[in-house]
């Protein structure tokens, strides 16, 4: 008599027909998915696909309009974040929700009833319990802000698992990590798997989904359009799986964002930018830049790869004139400009597209039209004799808005009201206006959705084709490899190597990035 297979236990967490609506949009449309204990499910989707809503439903911030959520087969109501946490569903968000000025222990205690004393002993014990499962150790009395980003993320994970350990939701967890940090995270996720904890790994990067996930689900425009189960994923080869996913996400095969890698190998144009021995002093908690030197030709794209925090931003700011260099020369078309300020460099054709769109690139409360002229305040014809000429400013704004397809109710709309993608279009429009000669881009596609990413990359390529010398700083290796002619790597403030973008490039860059020893 053949014994029956024992019934598989119910999935740890399941959603059945979950729908959530907001005025004008259905954010989640009849979503059903389930995650089993010890499974890492990757949830793929672009910005705007409904990931954040789904996370907020699971995290207890909101309740579904229809459908239900089940934990171990029982329907539950996640009425508040605390209830979700108590049921063992913890979330680690993209942006830190810890207090940098408190210690690790204090951050973990945060949330306890206010009339209590600090229960250090109890907290320490629970911390030890969780870190043992994760296979890591954390310095409990260290001030959080002084830890590396990877360690800070570990604290977030610990906090998410504090009240219970069923499901851990990781939202874009690798965006700030070094390659080593990503490796460490993979190890931690592996340990979670072994401990029987389920992981929902949210990402918009296909490569990551494949690297981390045992199974993959694809979210598109609020619906779950497909996925690969554990068995299916195991059965497919990597390329096949990739094709399958891309098909689900974009409906077409072969329209891979990474496919257009054809680099022109044309002759280099004349040397437009020469940088020699550029050094920038380090501020408190900031990396320095040490003797960076390179040459840039017209129409060439020099990619600068490297983990965040190795001096890229400082280099960009020094090139732009925003930050004073302590040594070195910068020559634009042969003329030294290292002593010139931002306005002079702008006029000379040296432009800088910052990664910090809202923090320094634009002023949210100001209208789009003024933001488009932020680096040209006072220059004619927009100002005559120091007095504003509204019609000129307006005309200029309308032209740029149209040329770059910036979706805005009007030129007078405060730019802060626009979506991230449109703000970036406006920024690009501003910097690429009026005959740029050299453009420095810092993480130009960070935080954008796929269509806007493609638009931005196309714009960069187009400018280069027109002869603009380009410095492309990015932490996205795929982006660097797709666009650059040559690639340099920043490590601890130095430009440690410049390689041509050929078949070997990825491997050599990886080696350069690791350098001598691990990076925090």
């Amino acid at each position, binding site marked *: 008599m053949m014994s029956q297979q024992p019934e598989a236990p119910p999935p740890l967490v399941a959603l059945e027909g979950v729908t959530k609506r907001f005025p004008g949009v259905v954010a989640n449309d009849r979503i059903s998915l389930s995650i089993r204990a010890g499974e890492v499910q990757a949830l793929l989707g672009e910005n705007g696909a409904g990931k954040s809503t789904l996370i907020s439903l699971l995290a207890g911030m909101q309740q579904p309009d229809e459908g239900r959520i089940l934990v171990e087969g029982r329907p539950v109501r996640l009425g*508040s*974040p*605390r209830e979700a946490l108590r049921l063992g569903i913890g979330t680690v*968000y993209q942006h*830190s*929700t*810890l*207090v*940098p*000025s*408190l210690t690790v222990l*204090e*951050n973990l*205690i*945060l*949330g*306890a*009833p*206010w*009339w*209590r*004393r*600090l229960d250090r002993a109890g907290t320490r014990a629970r911390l030890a319990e969780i870190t043992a499962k994760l296979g890591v150790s954390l310095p409990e009395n260290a001030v959080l802000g002084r830890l590396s980003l990877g360690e800070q993320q570990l604290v977030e994970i610990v906090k998410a698992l504090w009240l219970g350990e069923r499901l851990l939701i990781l939202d874009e967890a690798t965006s700030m990590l070094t390659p080593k940090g990503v490796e460490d995270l993979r190890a931690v996720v592996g340990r979670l798997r072994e401990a029987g904890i389920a992981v929902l790994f949210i990402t918009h990067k296909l490569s990551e989904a494949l690297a981390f996930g045992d199974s993959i689900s694809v979210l598109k425009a609020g619906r779950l359009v497909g996925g690969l189960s554990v068995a299916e994923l195991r059965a497919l080869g990597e390329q096949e799986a990739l094709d399958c996913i891309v098909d689900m996400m974009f409906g077409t095969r072969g329209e891979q964002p990474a496919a257009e890698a054809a680099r022109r190998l044309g002759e280099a144009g004349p040397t437009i930018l020469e940088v020699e021995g550029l050094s920038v002093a380090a501020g408190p908690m900031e990396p320095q830049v040490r003797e960076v030197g390179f040459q840039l030709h017209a129409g060439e794209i020099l990619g600068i790869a490297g983990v965040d925090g190795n001096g890229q931003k400082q280099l960009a700011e020094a090139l732009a004139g925003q930050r004073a260099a302590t040594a070195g020369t910068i020559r634009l078309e042969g003329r030294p400009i290292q002593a010139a300020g931002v306005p002079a460099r702008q006029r000379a054709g040296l432009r800088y597209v910052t990664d910090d769109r809202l923090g320094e690139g634009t002023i949210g409360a100001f209208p789009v039209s003024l933001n488009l002229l932020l680096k040209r305040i006072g220059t004619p014809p927009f100002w005559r004799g120091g007095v504003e000429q509204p019609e000129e400013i307006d005309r200029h704004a309308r032209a740029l808005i149209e040329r770059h397809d910036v979706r805005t109710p009007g030129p007078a709309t405060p730019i802060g009201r626009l979506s991230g993608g449109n703000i970036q279009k406006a920024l690009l429009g501003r910097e690429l206006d009026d005959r740029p000669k050299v453009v420095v881009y810092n993480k130009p596609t960070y935080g954008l959705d796929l269509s806007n990413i493609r638009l931005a990359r196309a714009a960069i390529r187009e400018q280069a084709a027109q002869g603009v010398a380009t410095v492309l700083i990015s932490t996205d290796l795929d982006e660097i490899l797709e666009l650059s002619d040559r690639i340099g790597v920043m490590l601890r403030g130095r430009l440690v190597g410049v390689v041509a973008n050929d078949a070997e490039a990825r491997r050599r860059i990886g080696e350069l990035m690791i350098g001598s020893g691990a990076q925090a």
Partner: protein
Amino acid sequence: MESLLGPAFLTALFAGTLAAAVPLLLAGLGEQVSEKAGVLNIGIEGMMLLGAYTGFVAAWSTGSLWLGFLFGMLGGLAVALPMLILCVWLGLNQIVIGIALTLGVEGLTALLHHVQFSRSYPRLPRVETLPIPGLSEIPVIGPALFDRHPLVYLAVLCVPLLAWVFRRSVVGLNLQAAGDKPAALDAAGVSVTATRAGAVLFTGAMAGLGGAYLSTIGAGIFVPFMTGGAGFIAIVLAMLARGRPLWVLLAALLFGACLSLTTALQVGGVRVPTDIVQMLPFAAVMLLLVAFGRRAALPAALGHPYVRGQR
């Protein structure tokens, strides 16, 4: 000149320093809690003044100083409440409301004083002091520092108490999170509004108590506008103290010393114009800022969390 630095001068100086410092200490500690939580309490001058008035009236009509202190705290709370509702909860402009409340309280208390006391100008009797055995016997500083009304000792005790709360209690953590990164506090499931509300109420009570001390013990009488900017000084003290209650005490003593210097000098037989002496503490602070400006790192962001009325 021989009497300068003589025992009479020194006793007068120490005694006067402490008397002037207590209201600043209480209000300063209160303000420190608010600022830690991210609220800049511009209305603290109004809180002190109303506390001075209600405290005086209560003490005078009941004959009990402690009831006076209680009503002083209630007076401060009465001003903190609208501040809380309008600014912390609804999110109205803190500066406008704070100044409006201060002006309103100034007008109201002066008016009430005129109606009630302008003809009688009642004074409270000199207070009973509580000498600390042994310490109060020390020549010169004994009677000045250790033979005071119990509230003085309690005020000083607030310093270690508050330091303990800041570093070792969940309340302290919540306050710091509310001021440094309210989003984190919210994520941890603690209400930022409630935390800040509690901070503002505490400030009101402390400022009111400080005002009550000023009118009942310090001067023994209520005079319109008697706080004379002490609330604003408390704001500055709290900012300079950067989260450490001990520094509030030191700064309050510094100001107290300068403020009481005139009287002390008179006792010592030297006549210096009040105005010059009153300039001393402010000049001292400016000098410190100039000298240590580069390293003091009083961050420009000091204004940021405090005027962050919304999350």
